[in-house]
């Protein structure tokens, strides 16, 4: 009796987790693709680059450092940086609204911005 209830619990738990994961995956897949990346350095707006245009730019960070941002095939990625940890370089390419790449030593933040979802335009 007790064992079977436990068994049922396990199935319920597994089911709920599976449904949640599925919803999460679907929502993530449907997440709006961004149209541009906005770059800030030390919190101040630096530049905005459209994701539709392939480009490679060197972003001047703080204290003479720099990050190299590459936009290709609608995705943005940092391919090189003067920072010691290289976390930004290892970060995967971003393309969805809200995704960010941060290079903390250089105080560079790259954020994917999208066209805001609107009902109409004038």
């Amino acid at each position: 009796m007790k064992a079977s209830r436990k068994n049922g619990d396990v199935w319920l738990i597994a089911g709920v987790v599976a449904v949640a994961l599925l919803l999460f995956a679907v929502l993530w897949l449907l997440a709006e693709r961004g149209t541009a990346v906005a770059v800030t350095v030390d919190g101040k707006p630096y530049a905005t680059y459209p994701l539709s245009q392939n480009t490679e730019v060197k972003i001047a960070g703080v204290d003479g450092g720099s990050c190299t941002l590459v936009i290709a095939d609608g995705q943005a990625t940092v391919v090189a940086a003067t920072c010691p940890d290289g976390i930004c370089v290892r970060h995967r390419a971003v393309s969805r609204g809200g995704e960010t790449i941060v290079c903390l030593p250089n105080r560079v933040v790259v954020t994917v911005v999208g066209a805001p979802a609107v009902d109409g335009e004038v």
Partner: protein
Amino acid sequence: MHRRLLCGVLTLCLVFGAVGCASFTAATPQKASWLDVFDTVTGLTVYRMDGTDFYEKAEQLHHRLIDYHRLFDIYHTYEGVNNLKTVNDNAGKAVAVDPLILDLLEYGLSMYERTDGRVNILFGAVLTRWHACRTAALADPSAARLPQEAALQEANRHTAPSLLEIDRGAGTVRLTDPQASLDVGAIAKGYAAELAAAYAAEELGFTSALLDVGGNLRAIGDKGGQPFSVGVKNPDADAARPYLLTVGVANGAAVTSGDYQRYFEVDGRRYAHIIDPDTLYPATYVRAVTVLCPHSGLADALSTALFVMPVEEGMAFLQTVPEAAAVWVLADGSLRYSPNFESYILA
């Protein structure tokens, strides 16, 4: 202890799952669009309506718009229809027209009063000269030229609103000066959008919808208790941000007049389509101005009027129209708001 943690995690999963579901179950709006009215793109999005048969109702609305377009058209003639082109072609003679034309023209004359002459439906004599140059320049950019200043000055002698005679009793209109001509470009689309929206709400049962007649946006109702979000376009089309800001619009109109919409170039200089009645040349005070107000015809007229005056003057003028709010986009890309505009800003 573990149990409790597990319960917490599962509850969170359920909550997030439910939120995810809610965003999926929001009804998909139904859409229709037409390219054959007002020489522009007209779009309809219906979020909620009484009854069914969206496509049938949309087609009824489409036919209404075709009727308005044919009546208010100054460029084409339609068999069996006396429209504004008929009136212009027969300047000097009385022309029997549909009561809707009388309504539009009376509305136009009232806008002349209200905007202190900035919006003038008798401005056709001047505007046709600019229109001819723009059409020619777009067809053959190498032959682009400006209208002769003297010709503009001469044309401007035939633009007084008193040159239009409206006879309600006889159902006729007459241009008393054979050189005068009507141009309702500053009001017709907005006015037609207002008529169409009223028809859609009252006759078709649309309770939550957006009608967009070439940038003359008219909201019917709202979107589940929230205003519709409307993006104000960036005049610089190549910029990364397509919208300078988004505003909330419910039960009302939004329209933009901008130098980026229709223009032609001569010697690398851009000449936009909105002509300042004082200079007879394209107005260059601002890049664009967007007006929000309940009546779409008024919004259309106001956006044109504000486009042809300096911002400070427009700001003062707008105080005489408390139901309207505006945002100006200046040449350097900065924005100016009328005092009541900020309450409409969503983002």
